[in-house]
C-alpha cells in the first residue's frame, strides 16, 4: 500500500510538470488542444494526490506502524477522530494535506476557467502547477510521508495530547484552506503580469477566491485563539507567538487587499498596489510555513523541526524575485490615469485603511524576525514580547476602527461639508455619549475610553447605512421594515454583508479591549474546605477526584462557586491530566462563560496527599464578545459569498462589453454608491 502512495505522488509530479509545459505551449502557439490536455493533466494530478491522501488515511486508521509517519503520530488507543486528524498532526502529513488542498483548488479553478479568461487562465494554471511542483518535490524527495520503518514497533508514539482537542481538529484545516486558496488569486495576478492583460479581469475572476481565503483565515485564527484559550491554561487567547503571527499576517494583508480591489474595480487605480498585496499575501503564507518548520525563530509552540527550512526559503526568495521583476517590467502599463481628488473621499479612507493594515502586518513581521536580525547585526538575540506588539498595534487598531466608521459614509471622489455633517452627526453623538457613560461608570484609561467611543461611532455609522438603504427601498417599493431589511441585504449582499462583518469586527474589538485591560488574576494554594475570592465570586475547594484509564490518569478538583450573597452558582471541575504515552502532563481548564465575564479556573498543582491544591483563577471581562464577534464576521462573510443572481447577470453582460462600459454598469447599479 505505501508503494501506491509513493507511486501516486511521483505521477502527480510528472503530471504537474506536463501541465505547465502544455499550458504555456498551448497559450503561446494558440493550440487549444494543448490547453485542454493541460487541464486534464491537472485533474489527473488531483486524483493522484487524492489517492496518496487516501493511502495515508487508511494506514492511520488501520494503525499500520510499518509507516514511520503512522508510528510517530498515532497509536492503537488514539480515538478514531484523532487518527483522522493525525493526517495534519505531523510535518509530512501536513505537507501532503496542503498539496491535496492545492490540487483541489487548482482543479476547481481549471474547471471554472475552461471557457472564461482564455488569455490569462493558461498562465494562471501554469503558476498553480508550479506551486504544486514545489510541494510535490518536497513530498517525493525531502519529507516523504510513506517512508517505512526497518523494525515495526508494536505501538505508535501517539499524537501530542495538546492536539487531541476538537479545536485542534478544525484549526489546521481552516488555516490551510485559507493559506492555500490565496494561491489562486495570486496565480491570476501573476498571469495578468505575465500576459500584460492588466485590466481588473484577474481581480473579478478571483474575487470569490479571495473572500473564501479570507473567510478561512478568519476561522483559522479564531479557532487557534479559542484552542489556546481552552487548552493552554494561561488565561489568554493570543500571545504574539511567531506561529500565531504567521497566521495573522496573511489575514491582515488579505483584509487590505479585499478593500483596495474595490478602488481598482471602481476607479481603475492602485493596480500596482493590488498586485503587490496579493503577492505579499502569498509570500506570507510561505513565510509562515518557513518559520514554523525551520526552527529559525524559537516558538513556544512545538513543531517538528527539519531540514525543510532552506527549501522553503529558496522557494520564497525565488517567487519574490520573479514576481517583483514582473511588477517592475510592467510598471509603465500599470500607471493609472485616474487620481485621488480629495481627502474626504471613500478611496482616500480605503487607502489609509490599507496603510494601517499593512503597517500592522509590517510591525508584526518586524517583531517576529527581530531576534534573527538583532543576532545577525549585533551578535545578541533580542526578543520582543507581547508588550511590543500591543504598544505598536494598539494605536494602529484605533486608527483602523476610526477609518472603518468613516469609509462607508463618505462618497467616492469627494464629499461636501454639509453631506458630512448630515451623515456623521448621529454616529458622532453616539460615540461621544458612550465615552461619557463609560467615564461616568468609572473607566479612566484613555485607550479604553477612546476604543469604546470609536466602537460606538462605527456601530452608529453602520446603522445609519442600514437605515438609509431601508428608507430608500421603502420609498421605492413600499415594503414593511423587516422585509425591506431582508431584501436590502439579499439584493446588495456584497455591501451589506460587508457591514455585518464590520459589526462583527467591532464586537470582537470591544471583547479584545475589555479582556486585555480588565483581566484580574488570583493564584492561591488551599486545603480541602478552604475558600478564596476573585471579583465578586467566592471559590471553595471541595476535594479531588482521581481516575485512571488506559489512556490517561486524571485528578479533578471540585470547586464550588458562590455569589457574594452566598448562593451557589455552579461547581467547576478543573483537572490535571497525565497522559501515559508519551508520558506528559496536561491541564484541563474549567471555564464559566457569560457575556459580562469569564471565570477561568486552572488546577495548577496538587500535593501528594491530595489535600492541598494550587489554583490559578482568571476573571476576564468581555472575552465572550470576541467569539461572538467572530461568529458575526463568519455570518457576514457567508452573506457576501452567497451567489447573487443580479451580480452574475451584470458580469455576463459586462464580459461582452469593453471594460470601460463595465465600470459604468456597476456604478449605475442601485446600492453601488
Amino acid at each position, binding site marked *: 500500500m505505501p508503494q501506491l502512495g509513493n507511486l501516486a505522488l511521483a505521477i502527480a509530479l510528472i503530471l504537474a510538470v506536463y501541465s505547465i509545459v502544455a499550458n504555456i505551449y498551448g497559450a503561446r502557439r494558440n493550440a487549444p488542444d494543448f490547453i485542454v490536455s493541460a487541464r486534464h493533466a491537472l485533474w489527473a494530478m488531483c486524483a493522484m494526490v487524492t489517492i496518496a491522501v487516501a493511502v495515508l488515511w487508511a494506514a492511520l486508521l488501520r494503525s499500520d506502524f510499518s509507516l514511520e509517519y503512522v508510528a510517530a503520530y498515532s497509536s492503537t488507543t488514539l480515538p478514531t477522530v484523532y487518527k483522522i486528524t493525525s493526517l495534519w498532526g505531523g510535518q509530512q502529513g501536513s505537507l501532503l494535506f496542503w498539496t491535496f488542498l492545492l490540487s483541489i483548488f487548482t482543479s476547481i479553478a481549471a474547471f471554472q476557467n475552461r471557457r472564461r479568461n482564455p488569455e490569462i487562465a493558461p498562465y494562471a494554471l501554469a503558476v498553480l502547477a508550479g506551486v504544486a511542483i514545489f510541494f510535490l518535490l518536497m513530498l517525493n524527495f525531502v519529507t516523504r510521508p510513506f517512508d517505512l520503518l526497518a523494525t515495526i514497533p508494536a505501538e505508535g508514539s501517539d499524537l501530542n495530547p495538546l492536539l487531541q482537542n476538537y479545536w485542534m481538529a478544525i484549526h489546521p484545516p481552516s488555516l490551510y484552506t485559507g493559506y492555500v486558496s490565496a494561491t489562486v488569486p495570486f496565480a491570476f495576478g501573476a498571469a495578468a503580469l505575465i500576459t500584460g492583460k492588466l485590466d481588473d479581469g484577474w481581480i473579478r475572476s478571483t474575487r470569490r477566491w479571495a473572500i473564501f481565503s479570507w473567510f478561512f483565515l478568519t476561522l483559522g485564527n479564531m479557532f487557534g485563539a479559542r484552542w489556546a484559550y481552552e487548552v493552554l491554561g494561561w488565561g489568554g487567547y493570543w500571545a504574539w507567538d511567531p506561529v500565531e503571527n504567521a497566521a495573522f499576517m496573511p489575514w491582515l494583508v488579505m483584509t487590505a487587499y479585499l478593500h483596495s480591489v474595490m478602488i481598482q474595480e471602481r476607479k481603475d487605480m492602485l493596480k500596482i498596489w493590488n498586485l503587490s498585496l496579493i503577492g505579499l499575501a502569498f509570500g506570507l503564507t510561505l513565510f509562515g510555513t518557513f518559520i514554523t518548520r525551520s526552527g529559525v525563530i524559537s516558538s513556544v509552540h512545538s513543531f517538528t523541526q527539519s531540514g525543510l527550512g532552506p527549501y522553503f526559503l529558496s522557494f520564497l526568495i525565488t517567487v519574490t524575485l520573479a514576481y517583483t521583476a514582473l511588477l517592475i517590467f510592467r510598471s509603465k502599463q500599470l500607471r*493609472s490615469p485616474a487620481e*485621488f481628488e480629495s481627502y474626504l473621499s471613500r478611496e482616500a479612507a480605503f487607502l489609509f485603511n490599507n496603510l494601517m493594515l499593512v503597517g500592522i502586518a509590517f510591525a508584526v513581521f518586524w*517583531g517576529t524576525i527581530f531576534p534573527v536580525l538583532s543576532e545577525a547585526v549585533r551578535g545578541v538575540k533580542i526578543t520582543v514580547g507581547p*508588550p511590543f506588539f500591543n504598544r505598536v498595534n494598539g494605536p*494602529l487598531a484605533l486608527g483602523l476602527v476610526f477609518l472603518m466608521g468613516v469609509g462607508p459614509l463618505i462618497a467616492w471622489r469627494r464629499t461636501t461639508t454639509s453631506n458630512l455633517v448630515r451623515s456623521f452627526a448621529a454616529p458622532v453623538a453616539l460615540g461621544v455619549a458612550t465615552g461619557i457613560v463609560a467615564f461616568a461608570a468609572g473607566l479612566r484609561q484613555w485607550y479604553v475610553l477612546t476604543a469604546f467611543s470609536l466602537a460606538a461611532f462605527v456601530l452608529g455609522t453602520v446603522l445609519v447605512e442600514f437605515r438609509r438603504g431601508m428608507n430608500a427601498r421603502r420609498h421605492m417599493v413600499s415594503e414593511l421594515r423587516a422585509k425591506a431589511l431582508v431584501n436590502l441585504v439579499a439584493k446588495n449582499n456584497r455591501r451589506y454583508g460587508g457591514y455585518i462583518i464590520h459589526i462583527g469586527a467591532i464586537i470582537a474589538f470591544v471583547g479584545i479591549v475589555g479582556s486585555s485591560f480588565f483581566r484580574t488574576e488570583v493564584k492561591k494554594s488551599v486545603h480541602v474546605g478552604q475558600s478564596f475570592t476573585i471579583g465578586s465570586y467566592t471559590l471553595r475547594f471541595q476535594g479531588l477526584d482521581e481516575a485512571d484509564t488506559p489512556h490517561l490518569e486524571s485528578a479533578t478538583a471540585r470547586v464550588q462557586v458562590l455569589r457574594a450573597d452566598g448562593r451557589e452558582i455552579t461547581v467547576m471541575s478543573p483537572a490535571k491530566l497525565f497522559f501515559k504515552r508519551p508520558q506528559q502532563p496536561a491541564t484541563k481548564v474549567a471555564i464559566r462563560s457569560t457575556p459580562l465575564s469569564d471565570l477561568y479556573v486552572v488546577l495548577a498543582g496538587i500535593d501528594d496527599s491530595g489535600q*492541598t491544591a494550587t489554583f490559578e483563577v482568571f476573571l476576564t471581562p468581555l472575552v465572550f464578545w470576541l467569539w461572538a464577534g467572530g461568529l458575526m464576521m463568519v455570518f457576514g462573510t457567508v452573506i457576501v459569498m452567497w451567489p447573487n443572481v443580479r451580480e452574475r447577470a451584470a458580469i455576463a453582460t459586462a464580459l461582452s462589453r469593453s471594460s470601460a462600459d463595465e465600470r459604468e454598469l456597476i456604478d449605475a447599479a442601485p446600492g453601488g454608491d
Partner: protein
Amino acid sequence: MKIRPRFFIGGGLIVLAIGYLIFSSIRTTSEYYLTVPEVAARESELGGQAIRVAGRVKPGNIAWDPNSLTLKFEIAPIPDVDAAGAPVVKPVIESDPASFRVVAAGEPKPDMFAPGRDVIVEGKLGPDGAIAATQVMTSCPSKYKPKQSQ
C-alpha cells in the same frame, strides 16, 4: 497612477507614525535572549535588563513552596549535542560550568518542571547574582525535538 502631493503627505505621516511606534517600542520592550554561558559572560552589563535565559534545571537544590508559590532552583548550561544526540566532548574540560540561582515567586510550578529538563526563564538578573524570574517555561518534551537517526 497619479497621487496628488498632499496624499503623499497624509500617507507619509501615517508611515512615519508607524515607523516611530515600531522604533520606540522595540527599545523599551526588548529582552535579551541568552544562554547560561552568555549570561555569565555578560553578567556585568545585564543589571536591570529584561532577559530570557535558556538552560537546564540542575538536579538538587530545588525548592518549591506551594503556600507562597515560590520556586527556587539552579539553571545550568544545556550541553552541546551532535546530530545523533550524544554529548559533544569538549577539548578543554571546564572545571565547573557556570550556573545561576533562579527565584520565581508568585507563579505555579509548571507542569513539566523537573530536574534535567530544559527551561526558559524570563526575568532580571539581580545584584545578588540570582535571576528573579517572572516566568518559567518548560520546553517541549523530547519527542518533539528533531528526530534522531538511529
